[in-house]
């Protein structure tokens, strides 16, 4: 009896750990929101800078993108702990089945794309998938999506680039350098550019998709507001103020730009990570 009560308490605490970071991020956004501008205009800006920390060389800005991604990391930690605490050999709860399904799916994905040798990569790939997908989906809560900031995505891409280089160096430093001069030494500049382009193209692809979706939906929402002001502005009193035309279309666009595009880009980022790392490993023999 005592045991069950404790487990209930732990459940509640973990659920709090899932929800609280996101609520705090939203509260921070609401508290620090700038005053409503008086003139009627559309504002598209990057991540809001919450505060700056003095550093020796340059001030270190803490932006909305960073804070939101920390909140999402904490939430994912909460989800993982919630799904896996109190697991048994024979599953008797739905959440253990859910956890097993997630692990199974990622294992299958890694096995089919990278092979048996790289099964140790499954947690990393699952981490990238979850972080990227939930970051893009966090815009549904009204937060600034961390993936629409280039710095965040470039950080992940550089991490992947370091992994790739690490696995290439496993074949020996000499082979790594020789790889740049193949098939003939004239190709060396092209090979180096191709190597450096990997993280840039990975991060630009993800960032460009999410950010262009954000820009387009902002512009369309603004255009619909202006249109309804123009067409329905003659209605008396407060009825004229309500932008009726904004109902509907932005939601349909959000279905594509936020949900489909965000999940798709997360999947592509994970796929490319797997492919690049798998091909970087030198062949044995």
């Amino acid at each position, binding site marked *: 009896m005592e045991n069950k009560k404790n487990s209930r308490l732990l459940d509640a605490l973990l659920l709090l750990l899932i929800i609280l970071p996101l609520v705090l991020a939203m509260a921070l956004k609401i508290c620090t929101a700038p005053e409503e501008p008086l003139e009627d205009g559309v504002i*598209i800006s990057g991540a809001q800078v919450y505060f700056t920390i003095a550093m020796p060389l340059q001030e270190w800005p803490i932006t909305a993108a960073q804070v939101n991604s920390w909140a999402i990391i904490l939430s994912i930690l909460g989800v993982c702990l919630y799904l896996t605490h109190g697991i048994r050999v024979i599953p008797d709860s739905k959440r253990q089945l859910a956890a097993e399904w997630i692990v199974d799916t990622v294992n299958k994905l890694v096995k089919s794309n990278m092979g048996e040798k790289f099964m140790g990569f499954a947690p990393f790939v699952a981490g990238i998938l979850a972080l990227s997908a939930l970051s893009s989906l966090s815009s549904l809560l009204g937060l600034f999506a961390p993936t629409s900031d280039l710095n965040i995505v470039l950080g992940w891409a550089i991490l992947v680039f370091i992994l790739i280089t690490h696995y290439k160096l496993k074949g020996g430093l000499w082979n790594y350098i020789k790889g740049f001069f193949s098939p003939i030494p004239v190709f060396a500049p092209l090979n180096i550019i191709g190597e450096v382009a990997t993280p840039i*193209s990975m991060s*630009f*692809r993800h*960032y*460009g*998709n999410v*950010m*262009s979706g954000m*820009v387009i939906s902002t512009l369309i929402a603004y255009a619909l507001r202006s249109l309804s002001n123009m067409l329905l502005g003659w209605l008396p009193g407060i009825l004229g103020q309500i932008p009726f035309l904004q109902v509907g279309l932005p939601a349909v666009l959000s279905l594509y730009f936020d949900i489909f595009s965000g999940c*798709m*880009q997360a*999947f*592509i980022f994970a*796929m490319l990570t797997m492919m690049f790392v798998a091909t970087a490993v030198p062949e044995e023999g």
Partner: protein
Amino acid sequence: MLEIAIGIILGCCAIGAGIALIAGIGPGIGEGQAVAKACEAVGRQPESRSAVTSTLILGCALAETTGLYGLIIGILLIFVAPGSFVGILKSAIEWSKTIL
């Protein structure tokens, strides 16, 4: 004089953004080809529909990359470049004043 210069900067940034988005032609043609081939493949082997669809979506997203490069340049030219160019112009004017 400064107003004219700023006007030229803004106009040229807008024109450049428009030109940068010509990059959308390439991915458009490429993705159209990919979808056409995928339709053919599904028509020939309807049972392979799910595999073809998932490969198609992945390929389309990859082919979109070059278009997105153009888009990012366009967005930079509209939202970022005018401010920084005007800043450069103003600091250059200040600098020339101190020289003369």
